[in-house]
C-alpha cells in the first residue's frame, strides 16, 4: 500500500492532507466526524492577543463554486486559549499547527512568545493575509512580512510558517523576505477578496461589504501561486490551500509543488472530506504502482508522470 507520509519540518505528517485554519475550528470538534489518523495536521483557528468577537452578520454568502466569508478572526484571545482550548488540542492524535495573527511587530513578538511557552505544536503559522479584519494586509507588503517573521522566529523554538495572500502584493518578494527572515515555509493562499450584491435590495450581502472568496472557484489561482513560488524557491515548504474539493484538485496541488494540502471550504461542505481524500489518494497511487506520495509532489515542474 502506498505510503502517504510526508516528512517535513523535522517531523512526519501521516498524510499530506491538513485542516486549514478556520473551518476546522480547533480540531477536536471534528473528532467524531473524522478519522484523525488520516489527517496530516490540524491548523487551529487564528489566535490573537485580545479576544475578538469577529464581524457582524451576515458573515457568509455563497456564489457559483464557492462562498465569500467575513468571519473576522473570531477567537477567544491567547490567554483564554492557553487556559482552556489548548489542553484539548494537544490531546489530538495528529500534528498541530498554531495559527497566530497580530497587527504590529511588537504584538507579533509578544504573541509568539506566549505561543512558544506552549508545548505540543509542530509549527506556528502567521496569518498575515486575512482579508476580513480591516487595516492593510501585512502579507501584501514584503518588508512587513520580513519584519513580522523576524519577530516570531526570534522567540520561537518551532518552525514558523507564513500564510500569504494570493491576490495582493508581490508574492515572490514577500516569500523571499519571509524565507530570509527565517520562515520555514509558506501557506498559499488565503481567501481572495471578493464582493456580492443582493440585487433585490441593491446593497452588499456582507456586513463588511467585502469578503474572502474560497471554494473551487479559487483553485486555479492557488495553483498558479504555488507553482510560481515552487519554481522560484525549490526547497521551501509549501502548504497549498485554496479550492481543494476532490482527489483531482489535491493531485493538481501536489503536482504544482505543495508538500502538504490544506482543506478549508471543502471541510465546511463535507466534514468527512479530508479522510476521503487521503483514502482516494492512497488508492490512486496504488493503482499506478507508486510507493509514496512523494513521487507526485512537484512533478509538474519536471515533465510530469511520463504518460502520454
Amino acid at each position, binding site marked *: 500500500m502506498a505510503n502517504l507520509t510526508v516528512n517535513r519540518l523535522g517531523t512526519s505528517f501521516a498524510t499530506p492532507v491538513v485542516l486549514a485554519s*478556520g473551518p476546522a475550528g480547533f480540531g477536536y470538534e471534528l473528532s467524531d466526524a473524522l478519522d484523525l489518523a488520516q489527517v496530516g495536521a490540524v491548523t487551529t483557528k487564528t489566535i490573537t492577543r485580545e479576544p475578538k468577537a469577529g464581524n457582524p452578520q451576515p458573515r457568509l454568502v455563497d*456564489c457559483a463554486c464557492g462562498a465569500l466569508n467575513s468571519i473576522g478572526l473570531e477567537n477567544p484571545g491567547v490567554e*483564554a486559549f492557553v487556559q482552556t482550548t489548548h489542553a484539548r488540542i494537544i490531546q489530538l492524535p495528529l500534528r498541530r499547527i498554531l495559527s497566530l495573527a497580530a497587527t504590529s511587530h511588537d504584538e507579533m513578538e509578544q504573541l509568539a512568545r506566549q505561543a512558544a511557552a506552549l508545548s505540543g505544536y509542530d509549527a506556528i503559522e502567521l496569518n498575515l493575509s486575512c482579508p476580513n479584519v480591516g487595516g492593510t494586509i501585512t502579507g501584501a507588503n514584503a518588508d512587513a512580512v520580513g519584519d513580522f517573521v523576524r519577530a516570531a522566529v526570534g522567540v520561537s523554538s518551532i518552525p514558523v510558517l507564513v500564510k500569504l495572500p494570493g491576490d495582493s502584493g508581490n508574492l515572490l518578494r514577500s516569500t523571499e523576505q519571509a524565507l530570509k527572515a527565517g520562515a520555514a515555509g509558506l501557506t498559499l493562499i488565503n481567501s481572495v477578496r471578493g464582493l456580492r450584491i443582493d440585487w433585490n435590495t441593491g446593497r452588499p450581502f456582507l456586513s463588511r461589504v467585502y469578503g474572502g472568496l474560497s471554494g473551487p472557484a479559487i483553485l486555479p489561482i492557488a495553483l498558479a501561486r504555488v507553482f510560481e513560488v515552487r519554481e522560484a524557491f525549490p526547497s521551501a515548504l509549501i502548504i497549498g490551500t485554496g479550492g481543494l474539493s476532490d482527489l483531482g484538485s489535491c493531485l493538481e496541488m501536489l503536482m504544482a509543488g505543495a508538500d502538504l494540502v490544506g482543506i478549508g471550504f471543502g471541510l465546511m461542505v463535507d466534514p468527512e472530506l479530508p479522510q476521503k481524500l487521503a483514502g482516494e489518494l492512497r488508492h490512486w497511487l496504488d493503482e499506478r504502482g507508486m510507493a509514496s506520495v512523494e513521487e507526485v509532489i512537484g512533478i509538474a515542474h519536471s515533465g510530469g508522470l511520463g504518460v502520454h
Partner: protein
Amino acid sequence: MIRLDRPLVAAVSYPPDNLIKRNMGARVEDKELENRDATLNGSHFFWQKAQLIDRRTSTRYARVLLRGLELPCDVEVGQFVLVRYSDDPCLPRAFSVMSGSDLGLELFIKTEGRVREKFAAAPMGTVFEVRGPYGTPYASKINFNRKYVLVGGGSGAAPLLHFRRKYPHLVAGEVYGFRTEDACDLLNEVDLTVESTTGLRAHEKLQSVWRPGMGIIACGPEAMLRLLAQQYRQEPDVYVSLEARIGCGIGTCLGCSIQTSTGMQRICKEGPLFALEELPWLT
C-alpha cells in the same frame, strides 16, 4: 456594544451542553436530554441520500417530502438539516424541518435561490443529499410551564408547524404571516394572515391574539422579529428563532456567530432559538 469579557470565551470554547442544561424546561427528563446530546454531538456528519417523493408548489413556496433509507427522522422541533443536490461542491442550504416521521422529512421552503429552484423543478425521485439534523431543540430552551403564541413569517412557519404538531398542549395561539395568498393552499391545516387581503402583518395580527401570561415563539424575517421584539421586549418567555447563511452546520466555521448578552453564540449550535433578552441588538 460588543462585549469582550469572559462569556465570549465560554461561548466560543465549549460545547453547548451547559447552556442546554441551564435553560432546560422543567418537564424534560435528564435521560431524554442525554439522548438528545448524543444526537447533537454524535453521528450526523455524513451526507445521506434522500429522494424527492412528494411536492406541492405555489408561485413562491414549496412543500417537499424527502425520503431516504438512512435519513434521520428523529428530528426535534427547531432543528434544521443541510441539503444539497448531487455532489455539488458549493455550500449546502439549511432548512428547518417541518416534520420528521417514518414517511420522511418534510420541508417548507421559499423557491428562490440555487438549491431551492432545484427543489421546485426537479422531477419526483430526484436524489438530494441531506446532512443533520443540527441545532438545539426548542424544547431544551423554552419554559414548559407556559403556553405560547407561535408567530411565523413566510417560510419561518416551518418549525412552528412542527411545534404545534408535537406540543399542541403548549400552543395558545398561532399567527402565520404571508404577503400574498400564494401559500394558502400549501398550508391548509392552519389559517394564514395574508397582508394583501387583510392589510395586517404578522406582528399586527399578534396584538389581537396575545394575552398577558402567554409566551411567544417567533420565526421569520429579521424585520418581523425586530417589530415584534420592540413590542414585547418586557414580556417573559419571548423566544425568536434566527436564521443565517449556514456554513459547516456543526459549529466550527463560526459563519453564523451572533452577539448575545452572554457573548458570541452560534445559530447552528446554541441556536437557532434565543430568548429575546439574550439579543439586545434586536430591540
